[in-house]
């Protein structure tokens, strides 16, 4: 274990090398560029994996095999689709509002990237350890809804507009219960910073340590997160059978590709936040008292733990998508305002009571 290279050592080495060769301002700038490139690479790799996984999971759950013609086990199918989108013309109908039409996919994608900034993938592998990490993620991901509204409005198409309005109503309402379920954990650990939240779970993940209230918060968060990413069973915003494709009906080529990519990045952000807050981030799974088992778990690298948990939650969301039928808009709003929101408010009150009485760990 003495030979282990920590990620913080690598970042420190890059920082020192850059500062030795150029002025601090330019060093900072090149660090920004490096971080951005690293983030884009990570996101693209993750998106390719997610798209492939989605197709395979969908296929297996529907008694099919999924893509299996292009490349071994269909692995090249995603690349084929991406190249097809890249080669297509990004066509804009002539009655659209050109500025907003071209700006909407960029805004949506940029916001999804921004939300990944404070997430800690492994010890030391974090872009920005800010003291309000979780609040920042929820705040930034609330900008995304405006991109969707913009796309729907500027398309000058009634289906796009309807899809955008549904999506807006849905995201704005489900943000409440997602936020409240995060508040439950934040109240227990007493910090908004992502590294503090992970550090507080060293002796047990919150989902085990926090007993029933936190387990309930986890369920609510996964439901609300699925709704926030506009995925089935909450995919009213792009319900194919009613609204052709919702807010991105008029988009083609890579502009459509950006919306498609954004859906997967948003899924990644939701599941990474759930991983960080409820499942202990990059911390390994420990059972108190089983030292041999704990040592084996420690041997697995932390980034594998993090991405393993992330992929588990992504699998949960895919499982929901390929099992449940789509909700109606009134059922959707009823679920949020009559069931999830009151229950999570009661849950937060219970958690606050536990914290004030000092009954939590």
């Amino acid at each position: 274990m003495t030979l282990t290279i920590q990620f913080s050592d690598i970042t420190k080495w890059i920082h020192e090398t850059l500062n030795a060769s150029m002025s601090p301002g330019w060093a900072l700038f090149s660090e920004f560029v490096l971080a951005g490139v690293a983030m884009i690479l990570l996101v693209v790799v993750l998106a390719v994996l997610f798209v492939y996984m989605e197709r395979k999971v969908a296929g297996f759950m529907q008694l099919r095999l999924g893509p299996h013609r292009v490349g071994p086990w269909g692995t090249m199918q995603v690349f084929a689709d991406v190249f097809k989108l890249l080669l297509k013309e990004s066509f804009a109908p002539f009655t659209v509002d050109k500025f907003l039409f071209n700006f909407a996919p960029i805004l949506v994608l940029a916001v999804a990237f921004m939300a990944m900034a404070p997430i800690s993938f492994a010890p030391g592998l974090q872009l920005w350890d800010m003291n309000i990490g979780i609040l920042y993620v929820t705040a930034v991901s609330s900008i995304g809804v405006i991109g969707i509204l913009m796309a729907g409005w500027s398309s000058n198409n009634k289906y796009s507009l309807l899809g955008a309005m549904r999506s807006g109503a849905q995201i704005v309402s489900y943000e409440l219960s997602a936020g409240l379920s995060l508040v439950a954990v934040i109240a227990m650990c007493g910090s908004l910073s992502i590294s503090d939240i992970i550090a507080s779970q060293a002796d047990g993940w919150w989902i085990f340590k926090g007993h029933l209230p936190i387990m309930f918060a986890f369920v609510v968060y996964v439901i609300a997160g699925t709704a926030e990413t506009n995925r089935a069973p909450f995919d009213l915003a792009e319900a194919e059978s009613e609204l052709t494709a919702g807010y991105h009906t008029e988009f083609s080529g890579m502009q459509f590709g950006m919306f498609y990519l954004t859906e997967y990045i948003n899924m990644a952000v939701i599941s990474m936040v759930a991983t960080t807050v409820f499942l202990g981030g990059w911390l390994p799974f420990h059972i108190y008292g089983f030292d041999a088992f704990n040592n084996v778990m420690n041997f697995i690298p932390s980034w594998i733990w993090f991405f393993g948990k992330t992929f588990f939650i992504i699998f949960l969301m895919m499982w929901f998508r390929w099992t449940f039928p789509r909700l109606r808009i009134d059922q959707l709003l009823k679920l949020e305002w009559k069931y999830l929101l009151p229950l999570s408010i009661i849950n937060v009150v219970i958690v606050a009571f536990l914290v004030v009485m000092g009954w939590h760990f």
Partner: protein
Amino acid sequence: MSASAVMFYILGALVLTFGVLTVFTRKIFRAAVYLLLSLIGIAAIYIIMDMQFIAALQIVIYVGGIVVLIIFSIFLTHQAGERLPSRLPKHLLWSILLSGVGLLLATHILYHFSYKPSIEPAIEHSVKNIGTQLIDFRSYGYVFPFEVVSILLLAAMVGSIIIAMKTKKN
């Protein structure tokens, strides 16, 4: 010039540009989008000043709440997609006059305000301190305005429910 100063001037220019565009565009939905970009720029300036909590609240409240509400009300208005009619000369004159007076007043106050240097140590602006200060009833506490605002919001919510409520016809 340091990197943060460069960033500040770029962001300041962006905020001002989008603010001006918000006022002068003749398409109402674009005005909302320019307002959104301007507000995001202000949040970025807060982050440069190391006030991340305020920046996050700026985004949550203004961008996630108010601009979304504005956009929804634009969606529900009639003929929102068309260009607004150009201004009447009388209205233009009055608005130039009023905004000029406002500018003069603001600059006058700014130039004649005596900024007193303080020797007290700066308050730590962590989330915990802000939270404690917000519901503190001792000196410099904000519990009274906090409660007044919450009563106002409750009244507004009850009012909107009553307006939206269907009365059963017997």
